[in-house]
């Protein structure tokens, strides 16, 4: 028995040695890049690669000066794998003239024998030259071959789409408008008949706002829900077809869901916690009327709210660079935004920095409304400051804290700017895969506008929407229930 294993092991050893030797000796790895004009159109830039000497387990990387690694395509045994459907391949890559294969994780892969690869790159900033370079990397991440850098460009003129046939949608919007006006008139007539004379012209006043809200909010939401059941994407928006729950299936089966969902949850909970505790702490200190320089402090502490968020986030991005101010102060050279854990901690802290002033000011207003007599009564009873806070301040702030923390939850959940401007969802962004700091909304953005899959993005949006609605209902119910008990 054991002799069999030993011989099997030495056999494997020899075979693999041979494979490595032959691989190394037989083919030199090379990669060359050129532009593929026929793939360049709205928001996409064509790139053609000729490859040789690929080995299974390696991968081909397309790097740009905007993204770092834009796309990583693993080289695998493609035997038995299906190819990407032709229409979906329009936004992905073709290997040797046919759409690339996809593995069980829906990840695009190519075979070791691939000699040419044509890709439509999405998500490059339009109107600027982008330096693109292709590379072959082995399983340890060592660079095996690299093409020369070429410059590609998506022209601005390409962006000015002549709108397609807009009549259907105009008809649709028009008919919504007309039916709304009819509905409002009918309501008015009904109101007057009911004898409600006080409201005589009310609909005239509310009408425009309601029409705007319906046309530009409720209609898009409905449209988005419909989109989530279609295969709409960048390349065939007009002719998208109904595909049922497939998008939702893709979302639920995708490997990114757990990662993005978990980080979104942690990100939101930690942020709300920090907003509320720090906001409370600062509001408590600032509400001491005898404090010297109170107004100066308050004005300074308002700054994160007053300064446009995108500017302060970008400033933090600069300060968190390896050669930035934070490292200078600490005398360190940490790449805060380049490692998964430190990037996650950094984005969370920066967002806490942004959100505290709002909480501080709202809570400070609510605290002023609590009668000071109660604290004097507690002082006379010898209740300690901490117990005063725990048993008087906090319970009396509850009615303000519940909606405020809910609001903070929703805002943080949807906080696109902080993450997009700090890390773009990275590090470790792979094509089609979420990066380490991607939360749901930034990932939706990537899916929709970097990868062009509108239907899938809409499905994600619907799921986020349902999550938020059910959370809000649960939260409000829960807090009402506890209020009823206590």
């Amino acid at each position, binding site marked *: 028995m054991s002799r069999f294993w030993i011989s099997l092991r030495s056999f494997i050893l020899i075979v693999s040695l041979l494979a490595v030797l032959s691989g190394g000796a037989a083919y030199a790895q090379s990669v060359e890049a050129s532009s593929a004009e026929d793939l360049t159109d709205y928001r996409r830039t064509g790139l053609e690669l000729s490859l040789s000497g690929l080995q299974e387990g390696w991968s081909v990387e397309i790097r740009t000066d905007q993204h770092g690694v834009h796309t990583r395509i693993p080289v695998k045994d493609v035997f038995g794998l299906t190819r990407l459907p032709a229409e979906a391949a329009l936004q992905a890559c073709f290997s040797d003239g046919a759409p690339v294969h996809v593995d069980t994780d829906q990840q695009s892969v190519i075979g070791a024998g691939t000699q040419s690869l044509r890709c439509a790159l999405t998500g490059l900033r339009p109107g600027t030259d982008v330096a693109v370079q292709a590379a072959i990397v082995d399983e340890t991440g060592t660079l095996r071959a690299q093409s020369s850098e070429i410059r590609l460009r998506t022209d601005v003129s390409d962006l000015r789409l002549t709108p397609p046939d807009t009549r259907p949608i105009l008809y649709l919007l028009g008919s919504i408008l007309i039916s709304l006006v009819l509905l409002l008139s009918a309501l008015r007539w009904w109101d007057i008949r009911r004898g409600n004379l006080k409201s005589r012209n009310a609909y005239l006043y509310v009408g425009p706002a309601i029409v705007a809200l319906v046309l530009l909010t409720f209609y898009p939401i409905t449209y988005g829900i419909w989109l989530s059941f279609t295969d709409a994407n960048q390349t065939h928006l007009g002719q998208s077809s109904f595909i049922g729950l497939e998008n939702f299936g893709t979302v639920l089966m995708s490997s990114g869901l757990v990662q993005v969902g978990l980080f979104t949850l942690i990100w939101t909970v930690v942020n709300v916690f920090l907003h509320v505790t720090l906001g409370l702490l600062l509001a408590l200190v600032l509400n001491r009327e005898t404090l010297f320089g109170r107004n100066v402090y308050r004005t300074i502490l308002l700054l994160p709210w007053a300064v446009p968020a995108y500017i302060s986030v970008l400033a933090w991005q*600069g300060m968190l660079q390896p050669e930035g101010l934070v490292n200078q102060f600490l005398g360190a050279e940490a790449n805060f935004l380049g490692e998964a854990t430190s990037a996650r901690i950094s984005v969370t802290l920066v967002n806490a920095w942004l959100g505290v002033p709002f909480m501080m000011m709202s809570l400070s207003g609510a605290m002023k409304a609590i009668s000071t007599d109660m604290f004097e009564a507690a002082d006379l009873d010898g209740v300690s400051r901490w117990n005063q806070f725990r048993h008087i301040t906090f319970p009396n702030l509850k009615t303000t804290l519940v909606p405020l923390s809910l609001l903070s939850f929703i805002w943080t959940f949807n906080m696109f700017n902080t993450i997009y401007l700090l890390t773009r969802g990275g590090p470790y962004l792979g094509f089609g895969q979420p990066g380490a700091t991607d939360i749901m909304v930034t990932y939706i953005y990537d899916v929709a506008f970097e990868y062009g899959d509108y239907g899938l993005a809409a499905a994600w949006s619907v799921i986020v929407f349902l999550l938020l609605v059910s959370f809000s209902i649960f939260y409000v119910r829960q807090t009402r229930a506890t209020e009823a008990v206590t």
Partner: protein
Amino acid sequence: MSLQTASHKWYVPFEILSLRSVLNAAVAMHVVLAALELIRDRIDLAGLTIALAAIFALLRWLAPQALSGSPRLQIVRLIVLLSIIIVARLTLAGDVSGYAVWARAWSWIPILMVLAALFSPYTSTWTRQPLSTDDLAEGLARNRRLYPWFQRFGSHVLLIHSCVLVLLPVIWIADVSISPGNLLGGGIGDAFSLEHYQTMLGGSSFWVWTRNSVIVAVGTTFFGLCLAVPSAYAFSRFDFFGRRSAMFAFIVVQMFPGAIILVPYFLVMKTLGLLNTSIGLIVAYSVTALPLCIWMLKGFFDAVPRELEEAAKLDGCSTAQIFLRIILPLSIPAVAVTGIFSFLTAWNEFLLALVFNTSNDQFTLPVGLASLIPTDGQRWGDFAAASLLVSIPVVILFILFQRSLIQGLSSGAVKG
């Protein structure tokens, strides 16, 4: 129980009263300091710092009782000695950077306070119970004098730390904007050059972006107010069928902002050919800011007494006349505040502008400024100069109107 014995029970010397909060703060601070040492890759120092945090926690737990004369006093003395050795080791290991000074201050001050408590004559008098009436009176008077100062000092320490954290990016941006070259690095205030202001103000992009932002923000303010003012008035004054459900709809929309309707929004705009135009953004912003504007205005209108309208009605004014002649002139300040709010929203919005307007000549300031910081070839200096130019007017506007803005916003948000 006589008042005399009661005051004996109530008296604790100032040193011990203050020690508790100082040690609490020290424990929290040393956990943070340990994390910072880890970032500095000084694992040895991080270990020592954590040990120090543990020691402070132990002292916090032991010291108040031990100082009142229990045999544990000897243990406390030993622990203090140990902590002094650790802090001395930390102090010697550190360089003379701003960070080191700040971090060691946080270690030394609590230790000095513990030492003060150990050797203070007031503590030793207190330990020798019972106290004489004179000692008690003196101690109480001293507490009364010192404790408020201590509390104030604590508040200022907390606030100054917060303010430094808040001001750091502001100072940094100011410094980068006047440092020559577009790279990071170099200390605060070590060089001076106005080249970035020249680049931004002399080039065309900044002015193009500003023009776009002004058009969009002013358009949003105007269009948004046209929609919000009449409907807020109707919600405040009229009772009509569907009033409650309409108001509820506005709250729901306020709860679920931009990102969720991003994709369909984009497609609608694309179909209508409104991408890369100012009109698209104006329409989008007016509607997204609408709910909060309506809630803010409704709050203000609710505060206008109804008697005024009733008096006008008796004078023969029609509803429209009442609205235009009486309510609107009265609420000009409120309308102005709401207008400023929607202006600021439009001026600072990033996501929709990023998605809708992708060509450089249609960028608004947020997207334009962000485009100065791509992954490679970042122009930090130019960005910083432009940022200062953009945010100073906005910040002044915000701070001038902060009270009304915050009041309107938080009442709208909390009611919603």
